[in-house]
């Protein structure tokens, strides 16, 4: 049992106001205590030289470990700056940090991009390829989406990236054409290579969870295929044994199916990928008739730890969730992104 003399209460305040209180033991440095508590503290050398873990002492006493040298100048120290990897607390004290608590997360940014290609890939789907402009950058997690301002308007629409962060600065979107839609009007009548498009992102909590080796089930309705393509390409490039992936992709009619050549290639490149195609109406050789949810059955013998990613209209998501739970998947392993067609 440690007495209060051996433990100091240290408060860390991030730039976004997030505050965390730590118990730092005597002889322990603040960085180690913070990392042990899971705080997103920036650091690198952990030995007083690189200055990544710079913080400002705002109250109390805390000095660098006795006899330890650091890259801080005496005047910086006098101002209250400390390197947390060298700092021991002498009783209760507080520090402010120059970065916010979401530092490890990707924050949405506004970026400019150029149109590389606009291409009709199905009766009602357009492939839009963008390339981030000089000086613009954003990164994202596979599965997330961006907001696209329709050029010449102030209308904003959301689309998931079909490409991966490794493909940046190239970003690819699959967009469903809607009669009278503002985006559809631009795509069909005005969009041209070299147009400038403003985008903002990334957004969304729907993204591939890292390093899960249990089987993955993906159910995509229409352009809900886009985030699945991003996730599949990410799985393919991730080191280590790859999880089996069962992708069920459905559209209303055979004419609505798209990216089939791409799925065929992925099937070739990723031996663990199985793709099932469904169409609600009409017939085509490669697709079964029905919805993509029903294409997954008890015969697939999904283990209870299988994870599922769902993207499509709300009705499909609800049906898929119920169906997968009935097949034994646990509800916390089912992740969904539903989209609704925007009005005109």
């Amino acid at each position, binding site marked *: 049992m440690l007495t209060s003399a051996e433990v100091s209460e240290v408060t860390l305040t991030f730039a976004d106001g997030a505050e965390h209180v730590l118990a730092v033991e005597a002889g322990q440095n603040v960085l180690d205590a913070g990392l042990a508590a899971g705080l997103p503290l920036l650091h690198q050398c*952990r030995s007083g030289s690189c200055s990544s873990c710079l913080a400002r002492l705002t109250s109390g006493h805390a000095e660098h470990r006795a006899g330890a040298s650091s890259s801080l100048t005496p005047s910086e120290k006098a101002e209250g700056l400390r390197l947390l990897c060298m700092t021991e607390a002498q009783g209760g004290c507080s520090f402010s940090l120059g970065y916010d608590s979401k530092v490890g997360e990707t924050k949405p940014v*506004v970026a400019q991009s150029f149109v590389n290609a606009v291409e009709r890939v199905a009766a009602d789907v357009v492939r839009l390829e963008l390339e981030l*402009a*000089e*000086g613009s950058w954003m990164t994202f997690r596979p599965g997330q989406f961006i907001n696209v301002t329709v050029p010449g308007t102030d209308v904003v629409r959301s689309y998931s990236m079909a490409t991966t962060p490794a493909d940046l600065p190239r970003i690819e979107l699959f967009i469903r054409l809607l009669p009278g839609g503002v985006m559809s009007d631009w795509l069909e009548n005005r969009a041209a290579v070299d147009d400038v498009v403003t985008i903002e992102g990334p957004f969304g909590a729907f993204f591939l969870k890292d390093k899960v080796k249990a089987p993955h089930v993906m159910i995509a309705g229409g352009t809900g295929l886009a985030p699945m393509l991003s996730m599949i390409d990410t799985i393919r490039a991730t080191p*280590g044994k790859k999880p089996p992936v069962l992708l069920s992709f459905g559209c209303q009619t055979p004419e609505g199916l798209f990216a089939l050549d791409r799925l065929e290639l992925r099937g*070739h490149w990723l031996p663990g990928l199985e793709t099932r195609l469904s169409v609600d109406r009409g017939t085509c050789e490669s697709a079964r008739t029905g919805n993509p949810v029903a294409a997954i059955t008890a015969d697939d013998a999904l283990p209870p730890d299988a994870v599922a990613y769902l993207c499509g209209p709300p009705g499909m998501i609800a049906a898929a969730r119920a169906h997968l739970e009935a097949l034994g998947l646990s509800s916390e392993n089912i992740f969904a992104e539903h989209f609704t067609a925007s009005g005109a």
Partner: protein
Amino acid sequence: MNEQTPVRRRRTVSANQIAAERMNDEKTQGQYQPYKDAAWGFINHWYPALFSEELPEQKVEGIQIAGVPILLRRAAGKLYAIKDQCVHRGVRLSSKPMCFNDTSIACWYHGFNYDLETGMLNNIVANPDSTLIGKTGVTTYPVQEVAGMIFVFVREDDFPLEDVPPLHHDLPVRFPENNERFPHPLWPDTPSLLDEGAVAMGMHRTGQSNWRIACENGFDNAHILVHKDNTIVHALDWVLPLGILPASDDAITLIEDEDGPKGQMQWLFTDRWKPVLENEALGLKVENLKGRFYRTSVVLPGVLMVENWPEEHCVQYEWYVPITDDMYEYWEVLVRVCKTDEDRKKFKYRFDTVYVPLCLEGFNDCDLYAREAMEEFYADGTGWDDEQLVETDISPVVWRKLASRWNRGIAKPGKGVTNATKTGSIRMRRLAEGKAPGYFVEKIENVNKR
């Protein structure tokens, strides 16, 4: 963004970048796009690193595979492989080995000392109480030694150790267990490196071309024309065809076993392939008399097996281990099962007096320069689009597709490693000193000796 700032397209960067996906002909070439992207090799595979005799007790060697600098050390009878790049400032530890005990190695520059087993930074020579100790380290690589060869599993830093497959997944298929599937009535069972009593004898040297160009040479059945005039062919009166044409749909069988290597077997000297012994229009005819039956197969990450070569009971293995995007380490290894010391001596004698001068050098030297002759066409990546393939190229094309499917990762262009920057002044100085870029680290000579 300031509204006055004009929005500009980015300048495209081409140096050291993986080829952009070709959307326009994705269908035709797309099946092997991952292979085209693998200029720096496939990673997360087992590769030969050294012959056992190249790494005696206490020796430290530095090599580079697929853009990864690797240090090997043998100490107290145990083999270790760790990343040969100090986490501190990137110095290659192997360029001036400094070891204070049998379980660690220190960086000779600032004394960062690494545990050989775990790669962990466990001391700093002049800073033993540093708070950094125990908090960082270098990647370790699984090592395995068989039949006189040291293999290393070259992995990405975050490839989980528990996912490392057994070595036999990256070695050619074995016999007799595959006799039914791949019968060979014309020669005895092919030995394997993994057989009991197997002895590997061979050599390795650096070739100045991309590893893929090198790899595709060995099982390309039109390439044997380059051997038309080789001494051994005529001294032993071998019937070596001008070329061998595929004559059936099943000329190649894919090997895609779950618990085994992934590759392709070519049914040479069966009715599925037709040897061409004469070209009347050009006045060419093979007139030698002695049949020289052999069969080629290739498995990931690019291991050629030539069965029944150069003689019965013997097999030739070849590796084309990527070093950078324009260099590979060419391994030629003959394997024979030697049950007694006497057998081993005989094999060694024949290796030294016949196989090295006439086969591994005389015969295979032609392959080495043939690969280099192709290199410039492919060096900037355009050759993959511009090549005009022909019937016999089913072999490399099947291989490209298969490799695209079963590789365990595409090596990223080497960063901060030897020979990644082609125009660096150190590289230039070495060239001026007459040292060709290669596989081994450049050792620092004793500073007191001039």
